[in-house]
């Protein structure tokens, strides 16, 4: 309070947690793991009509090292599973995962010998999106949900 009275409106105080989370919330860098139809919808999501950059998440990174949001868009097969796991492991903390669409969430209608019945068999998932494929608006909602989630996190203490 002392600083704010002395410097007026030119400064404000907060907690480190809040600043970090505020930054994280508004600058999520997604790694689009687009494998199938949902990947095509992600292209629509990033393009001008829907424009995910309004939520600060337009910096699509294709290196897991630079991303903090894994957007799994499409069917994951058993042949693909080790690769997805490796990419998730390569992402630095803190990281979040969105399972986009029925296939990524539950295997969808591919209930057969080669499809993983939901990516949560391999990696933890924060938000599931229904739809085959989900509309871009649904993905936006998922990103917004995740942003609310990020705000409440106690990130500094967790680190220590």
């Amino acid at each position, binding site marked *: 309070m002392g600083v704010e009275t002395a410097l007026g409106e030119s400064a404000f105080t907060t907690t480190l947690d809040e600043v970090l989370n505020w930054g994280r919330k508004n600058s999520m860098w997604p790694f689009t793991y687009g494998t*199938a139809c949902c990947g*095509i919808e992600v292209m*629509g999501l990033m393009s*001008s*009509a829907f424009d995910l950059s309004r939520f600060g998440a337009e910096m699509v990174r*294709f290196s897991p090292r630079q991303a903090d949001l894994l957007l799994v868009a499409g069917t994951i097969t058993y042949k693909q599973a080790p690769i997805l796991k490796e*990419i998730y492991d390569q992402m630095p903390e803190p990281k979040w995962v969105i399972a986009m669409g029925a296939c990524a969430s539950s295997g969808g209608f591919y209930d057969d010998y*080669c*499809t993983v019945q939901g990516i949560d068999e391999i990696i933890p998932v924060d938000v599931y999106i229904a739809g085959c*494929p989900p509309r871009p608006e649904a993905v936006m909602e998922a990103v917004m949900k995740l942003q609310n989630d990020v705000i409440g996190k106690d990130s500094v203490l967790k680190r220590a």
Partner: protein
Amino acid sequence: MKAADDKKMTAAAEPELTGTVPGPEDFYQDLHTDLMFLNYGPSHPATHGTLRSLLALDGETIVSAVGEIGYLHRGFEKSVEHKTYNKVIPYTDRLNYCSAILNNIGYTKAVERMLDIEIPDRTKFIRVIVGELSRMIDHLVCIGPQFVDMGALTNLWYVFNEREKVYDVLDKLTGARLTNSYCRVGGLYRDFYDGCEKDILQVVKGIEDAIGEVEKLTAKNRIVIDRTVGICPVSAEDAISYGFTGPTLRASGVNYDIRKAQPYYYYDTFDWEVPVGTQGDTWDRIYVRFYEIRESAKIIRQAIKNLPGGPIWTEDKRVKLPEKQDTYQNIEGLINHFKLIFEGTRVPAGEIYDASEAANGELGFYITSDGSGYPYRVRVRPPCFMNFAAFPEIIEGFMIADATVTLGSLNIIAGELDR
């Protein structure tokens, strides 16, 4: 091997002492070191999905390549053996998900031929119109990201804006943006809504304008020309041997389009041309699609102009669901409805191979029926499969950057490739 290299190096170095300047050949000779192996995919931004190639590199030049697929093998052919004929349609959507309706058409056309059903003219025309619209957006999805791979991002926005408008129309017509499931065996899910023709003509005009802009921006662009002309050419003979069909085959100069060769749905009555390339290089494979979009627009305009009225369903009771009124108030109607939904349409025993021109080439359905309501075996002949089988061979001798552009021009859709 190491010792031999050393000897070569000293031999090359000696003339320098006596005053001769080493030429560029000597310089590059020294650069030739051991081969480096690079995994290109399966999770790589330029592989558009889940394709993998292992490249053996000498510097940046690919001396040898092998491909691997199957990362999106989700068991289409096994799954559909457990579904009735109509329930297969949503699965076909997810083969080539950029132009779902063309897959619907290919599949329903095959089953209708097995049943020996003639569908009404209005249905045929609507299938032509919506199918060609799908072909246009499929080509847009090829063209847009293709130029992104070359660093020309603006073009993506130009074509994707129009693509979104098409999706709005398809959304209104079929209820889904991407995976439409619009066709049924013997008919369509629903008729055009009021004003649909006008909407379609408008989006078609929009697409034509957009690709006009893109062509203006790219066709005379030095970078685009340098990166595509003469890159990874496929001769006509090779293209046939590889089993190429569709735009990739026509880029190599072979005039084969099923819509002309074995016309279905009155394609032979429309006035349109088959664009054909000359060299089969990446340039031809990209720009043949521009011309195809324009030809599709021509077909759509003619089809809308001549769109006949009448029903969209065949009267054949083997496939047509009874009217809702009959289902609820009439025991025969109820039984008919029940049997069609639960047991499926009984297709006579036999086998058929039916081909239609999808966006990437010949989409064949080889269906074996045992006389029940469930297909005994459905084999899809995916056009992408043949294109990607050739990919490792045609990129050899070129550079990694060329491989990226070539892969884009082949337009591999993983859902169709791996099924």
